[in-house]
């Protein structure tokens, strides 16, 4: 019996070493120059996973092979944009961060992990566009026509949690902005009225998922009457066979998603060339068409023109700059005295 025990202990000790070794091996920085295969770690938000997996990454792997003859391998992680930024700041050694909104990239830059001017890239560092829409079930049984319907009594509205989801922040900006511009039934240019409208919408929100993707999959499971979401999320869902439609509000915000390489980690991994080439690729017509196939509006104006018919027009399409730009929005809407902060606090206080 003692011998069996000894054997068991040795077996345990050996099995202890295996994951440690495996873990250490993976942790070795990829030497892009010496070895034949470069590994790039892509940290993205939840929404574009199909686009990257099925179009963009294979496309770049092909292009890289053609150009340099070497193979390139991608490791991917998809989480809520805020969560992803947090992870990168906390030590997640992503070579490329493709997030939902500029402030999340700025967060990483503020920690000196990104040290170049990422906005200097073509299209201001953005790689995809989309718009905020209202996803409804097939046939629109709830009869949603525009923002004003969202405050209807008894309606169940889904939107993610802005603490972790970039998509949620776009949603809130869209609601607030549309209200300020007078397209929601409340007085235009009246911040108090707009805040009131925002509160009215959130009175109907009963679930706030962690990310845009989680929010739409909850909606698909049969929960809720309408989901505020990215246009491309609904298009992806439809492509996956879900019975969803979407309503384009008269006035909505243009969602702009950035991507940047993380200087500290590309230096550490020796993957700067590959990472920079990947970002160039993202702006190329090839990739832009790839994104368009998955429901993203291209940032490249030429490609946008070519795929125009796929995307419904928006009567009043405006950008974050029309709200004063991200720094102002972060302060005025999400700051300690911000509009959203107050709405959220009141919502928690309410029964």
């Amino acid at each position, binding site marked *: 019996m003692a011998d069996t025990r000894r054997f068991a202990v040795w077996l345990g000790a050996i099995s202890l070493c295996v994951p440690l070794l495996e873990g250490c091996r993976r942790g070795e920085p990829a030497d892009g120059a010496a070895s034949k295969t470069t590994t790039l770690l892509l940290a993205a938000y939840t929404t574009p996973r199909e686009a990257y997996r099925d179009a963009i990454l294979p496309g770049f792997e092909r292009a890289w092979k053609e150009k340099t003859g070497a193979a390139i391998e991608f490791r991917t992680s998809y989480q809520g944009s805020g969560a992803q930024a947090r992870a990168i700041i906390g030590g997640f050694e992503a070579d490329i961060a493709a997030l939902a909104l500029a402030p999340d990239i700025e967060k990483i830059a503020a920690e000196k992990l990104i040290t170049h001017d990422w906005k200097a890239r073509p299209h201001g560092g953005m790689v995809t566009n989309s718009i905020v829409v209202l996803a409804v079930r097939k046939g629109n049984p709830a009869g949603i026509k525009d923002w004003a319907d969202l405050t209807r009594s008894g309606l169940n509205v889904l939107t993610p949690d802005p603490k972790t989801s970039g998509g949620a922040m776009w949603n809130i900006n869209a609601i607030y902005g549309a209200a300020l511009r007078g397209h929601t039934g409340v007085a235009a240019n009246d911040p108090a009225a707009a805040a009131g409208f925002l509160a009215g919408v959130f009175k109907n929100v009963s679930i*706030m998922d*962690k990310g845009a993707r989680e929010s739409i999959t909850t909606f698909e499971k*049969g929960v809720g009457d309408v989901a505020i979401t990215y246009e491309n999320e609904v298009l992806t869902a439809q492509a996956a066979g879900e019975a969803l439609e979407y309503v384009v509000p008269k006035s909505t915000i243009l969602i702009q998603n950035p991507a940047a390489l993380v200087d500290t980690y590309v230096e550490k991994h020796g993957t700067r060339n590959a990472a920079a080439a990947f970002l160039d690729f993202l702006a190329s017509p090839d990739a832009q068409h790839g994104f368009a196939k998955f429901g993203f509006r291209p940032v490249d104006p030429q490609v946008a023109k070519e795929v125009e018919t796929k995307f419904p027009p928006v009567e009043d399409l405006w950008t974050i700059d029309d709200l004063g730009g991200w720094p102002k929005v972060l302060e005025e809407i999400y700051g300690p005295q911000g509009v959203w902060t107050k709405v*959220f606090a009141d*919502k*928690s206080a309410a029964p």
Partner: protein
Amino acid sequence: MTPAAGSASAATAPAPARKDAAVPRPWGRWGLRATAIAYLGLAVALPLAAVVEQGFSAGLREFWRNVTGPAAADALQLTLLMAAIMTAVNVVFGVATAYVLARYEFPGRGLLNGLVDLPFAIPTLVTGLMLVVLYGPAGFLGRWMEGRGIQVIFARPGILLALLFVCYPFVVRSVQPVLLGAERSEEEAAWTLGASRWKTFWRVTLPEILPAVLTGALLCFARALGEFGSIVIVAGNIPGRTLTAPVYIFGEIESQNPRSASAVSIVLLTISFVMLLLVDAYSRRPKAAGG
């Protein structure tokens, strides 16, 4: 997925070692002691210190602000409330289950006995998934319940259900051995004197198992406070309504508020740990009394 040691009580601080106890030679004893201290120090004490440091790193007032902020306070209140309700229900059904398992013979008794431990073995995430499949809007029971206007998933009943599942074994396994080892003579005496079953249970059996019931209840409560895997799937994340403390902490971690996350963590840890200390102290009493 934290099973109680079959005895369903916290590690009772062992009685002090007798001086004549066989201990290895001095260097061996020190080696062993050093290993144990290093193990527990590095694996438990150090991480705990990190959280405590982080929570108080901006001072006491900031700590208090983080803990009493609207969403945090609501989350803590909801967690305590759900744990309390669940524990109450679990005590009733747990005692009933233990009684049935210990006293009666019926087909399927062995199966039931084994199943009681199932929540110990199943990952909490899988628990959450199973509950959504069954009680979600697209599930069997979910559709039936929605028709009657009862929402389970993404509402408080869902949280309760998840906690009931996960904590089911604690009271059962705490009470069952006591019932098995109990002296039946008093019970039998009560029956022969004409007392009804219920009265016998209430007057004779219950007082005897009460310490075990309390131990199980405390363990159950402490376990429920920290539950995450099943609740994150099953609850809706709305502060004040369906946002529990662990999910709130998770949100704070994810949105880069380590100090806030630490502050609430410290409160949660303290409550749970006090529960475990109570269990420890309480489960030592009968031993001292019984000798």
